[in-house]
């Protein structure tokens, strides 16, 4: 009783805080409407909103009970409340770690230290600038953030006889943290993007060219060799040679500090521990200190744009790594607001996600406006249909079929400040086998960004014929199939739709179930078919 009261008070206080906060989301909605002539979709149904916000913030669908309660609740602040609840859910950290891993690593090989690093960062809502700083700092003998350098080391892995891909690393730092893809400006000024010059690429390149993967430690770690002269370059199309020191895109060059021989190292190599020497002049350290900074607008702008992308499925600048003057933002003032909110809040990721989630733009239905046959994706007049990642599909299918025991409830963990780690339930299903299969079926090959809904024949064959998901549709201790087998048609239909699609069925849909239960007399088989058909539907496979 006492605990419920304190929870209620906590929610009340939150509500007050929210209502008094600046209406950034209102400004955003106004700007979206102003720039996007034409009818807007209605605000989404409660069911659609609940499923959507769950998938975006915690990477999982709501339970049938949560869905029903939400649909039936009369509270006018229920949407705000659920946003805040989910932002504090332990699954939030897991989900953001997974989504940032997909975005930053583009399905390159995983690393457990890196996963732990990301999980910890999102658990404590670490500011975005700190996160990026840690990723770019060449780790010394530091024991915190040990996985952070995986972003860098994975790009430096040698593949066969190919040379180490320093240009690729330089490009990826630009793409992920500044939103600029300078890869095609390595050998000459970019042929179609006038903003991207060869000097821009070379400036970024100068930061990474002297780095290497350390082999004295078991976690991903970067070392640096001495840099004592600038890079010399010239265009392959002819022209004079120029030099550059390390320079962040749109920034000024950093002077290369040259030290006398014998004095170049801040820390000498340690022969016993095999720790390498650390040069006094460390370009990566300079990069990590200067890139994620308030006076580097491009950093905040890119990060804000990516947060919008995570929620709305499309960047305000799109593609996400092509910010330049000829690639107009669809709603530049909206991006300005998000950029500013990010900076002034101290790079608070949850703060910006909360703003976006609270907007009407985010809460709009994915159904088209009346009498409209199509809507441009850049207008945000409708909520776009977004893909689910392999991870989201896995968690959602496990929950939908009832194969994921509820060891994780908010009320248990809320009052336990120690409980910041996500507990992965292990007794229902072989999770590592399931992980593997879902990744094989749904993840892109390495270096292919996951942006649009691109269903694959491989995934279809997986759902059709692989035993994993098929077995989840058969009755087992307390799962969906078993629960449904004891129900009559009407309650069965309701529970089936609430559990899998997080909404109530229409009469037509209930009739379909009724018909199927007749045409397939074996109830287990019929239920398996019904469950499977909803799991394989586009409605389930997308975030709409």
């Amino acid at each position, binding site marked *: 009783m006492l605990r419920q009261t304190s929870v209620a008070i906590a929610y009340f206080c939150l509500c007050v805080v929210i209502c008094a906060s600046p209406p950034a989301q209102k400004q955003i909605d106004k700007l979206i409407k102003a720039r996007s002539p034409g009818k807007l979709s209605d605000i989404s149904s409660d069911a659609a909103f609940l499923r959507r916000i769950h998938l975006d913030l915690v990477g999982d669908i709501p339970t049938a009970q949560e869905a029903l309660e939400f649909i039936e609740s009369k509270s006018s602040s229920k949407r705000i409340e659920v946003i805040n609840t989910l932002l504090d859910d332990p699954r939030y950290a897991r989900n953001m770690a997974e989504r940032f891993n997909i975005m930053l690593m583009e399905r390159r090989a995983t690393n457990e230290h890196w996963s732990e690093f990301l999980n910890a960062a999102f658990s404590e809502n670490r500011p975005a600038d700190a996160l990026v700083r840690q990723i770019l700092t060449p780790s010394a003998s530091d024991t915190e953030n040990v996985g952070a350098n995986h972003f860098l080391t994975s790009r430096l892995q040698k593949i066969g006889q190919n040379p180490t891909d320093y240009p690729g690393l330089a490009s990826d730092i630009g793409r992920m943290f500044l939103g600029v893809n300078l890869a095609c400006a390595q050998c000459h000024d970019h042929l179609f993007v006038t903003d991207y010059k060869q000097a821009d690429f070379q400036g970024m390149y100068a930061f990474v060219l002297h780095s290497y993967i350390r082999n004295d430690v078991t976690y991903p770690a970067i070392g640096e060799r001495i840099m004592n002269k600038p890079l010399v370059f010239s265009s392959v199309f002819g022209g004079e040679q120029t030099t550059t020191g390390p320079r962040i895109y749109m920034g000024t060059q950093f002077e290369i500090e040259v030290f006398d021989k014998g004095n170049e190292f801040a820390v000498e190599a340690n022969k016993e521990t095999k720790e390498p020497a650390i040069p006094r002049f460390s370009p990566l350290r300079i990069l990590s200190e200067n890139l994620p900074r308030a006076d580097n607008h491009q950093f905040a702008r890119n990060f804000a744009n990516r947060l919008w992308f995570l929620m709305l499925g499309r960047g305000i600048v799109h593609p996400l790594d092509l910010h330049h003057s000829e690639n107009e933002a669809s709603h530049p003032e909206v991006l300005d607001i998000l950029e500013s909110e990010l900076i002034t809040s101290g790079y608070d990721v949850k703060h910006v996600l909360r703003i976006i989630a609270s907007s009407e733009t985010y809460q709009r239905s994915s159904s088209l406006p009346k009498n409209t046959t199509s809507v441009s994706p850049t207008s945000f007049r409708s909520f776009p249909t977004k893909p689910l990642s392999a991870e989201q599909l896995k968690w959602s299918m496990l929950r939908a079929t009832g194969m994921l025991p509820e060891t994780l409830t908010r009320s248990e963990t809320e009052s336990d400040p120690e409980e910041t780690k996500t507990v992965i339930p292990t007794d229902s299903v072989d999770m590592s086998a399931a992980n593997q299969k879902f990744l094989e079926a749904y993840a892109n090959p390495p270096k292919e960004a996951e942006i649009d809904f691109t269903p694959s*024949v*491989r995934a279809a*064959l997986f759902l059709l014929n692989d035993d994993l998901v098929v077995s989840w549709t058969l009755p087992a201790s307390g799962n969906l199939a078993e629960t449904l087998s004891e129900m009559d048609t009407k309650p069965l239909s309701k529970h089936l739709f609430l559990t899998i699609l997080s909404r109530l069925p229409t009469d037509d849909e209930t009739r379909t179930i009724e018909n199927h239960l007749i045409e*397939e007399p074996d109830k287990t088989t019929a239920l398996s078919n019904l469950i499977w*058909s909803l799991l394989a539907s586009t*409605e389930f496979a997308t975030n709409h």
Partner: protein
Amino acid sequence: MHCTPIEHAISRRTLFGAAAATTLGMGGLGGLVRPSIAKRLQSDQKQVLFIWIDGGMSQLESWDPKPNTQFGGPFRSIQTSIPGIRISELMPKTAQIMHLLAVDRGVHTQDNSHSAGVGRVNRGDPKDRGVTYPYFGSAVANLLGPGESGLPPYVWVKPGSGGFQFKDAGFLGPQYGALAIGDGQAPDNLLLHKDISSKRDDLRNKLRVLADERFTKTRSSRSTEAQGFVFDTARTLMRRSDLFEPADPKDKERYGDTPFGRDMLLGKKMIEAGVTFVKVNSYGWDTHGDNFNGHASLMPRFDQAFATLVTDMHESGMLDHVLVIAMSEFGRTPRINGHVGRDHWPEAWSIAMTGRGIRRGTVIGKTNKLGTFVDSEEHDIGAFFHTWFHALGIDSTHDEYVNDGQPLPIAHDDMAPIKELLA
């Protein structure tokens, strides 16, 4: 008895056993044409068999030998079935069917590196328009469609890993990527789940389709179309699991029991099954070192599979319907390096083709005496794309893709079909 898909496949195996393959698979023995081929001929579906020789086949050790010259290497040339035309002694079987082929020895392309060259050549080197153009296979899959087979329109038969590769498709979108079959292995999960009958599979898919129809009532159909397409393609593949059964040993012997021989046989099977565009890859041609001993074993194995395939397709009548192309990303340098190898040479090399719309028994283009540069009219890859689209009945100068509202020409603006190669 009503034959449902999975039952049909099983009963055929049990009723006819392994003998079924030999009696039905006449291939290049003249006489009976397999029922599936007959059906294909009737439908006159336009198809392409694209043989990609990865790494750069040496034109001097194949189509355009210059024996006894400074850069000619050790091998001799041999007479072919076209009077006056000689090719390398390393291709004796192909020499006998030269009258079925068209070869252009005057190819001059732009890139001398694999990383740039492979992509540029496969895309037809269109003018830069800020978009990633599709590879030829994706382009044809898009322009011609999947036909009636229900199989993916673009299948890639290759050594190594298989899977669904949509990188080739560029701006056309993943739907026009390739289904890659690696080492002849069927895609994972190809066979229907052991506890599910095909009747039940039909039922559950009916339910799925119904759910999607309802979902798309108020939304753009793009997502449900894509989802529907992949399930339809998956289920069609499931019904064609016979495509992945082991080849007839006699055929294996004729094509050569090598990775390329086996893949050419599978490629032919895919064409006969009605796949619009089949690409067959051969790797390992980048002979910067030991080029001559290298080609001494590479060429005969290529020769055997290639000549057998063209002969089989000619005898079955398929050659009139299927455009066949054999090429690399560039040729190899006349200059011989210190590792007794040849390096990359886009300046003067050769492309071979035959089939639908192509003139047979013709060799155009000339390189100079030393084989260093093209002496006659030069052709870049854009001109070949025009030629091939034309052979397929596609108007390459007027037809366009439309990408997000932007019209894009399908082949290089400034080039045109090579009339001398067209029938």
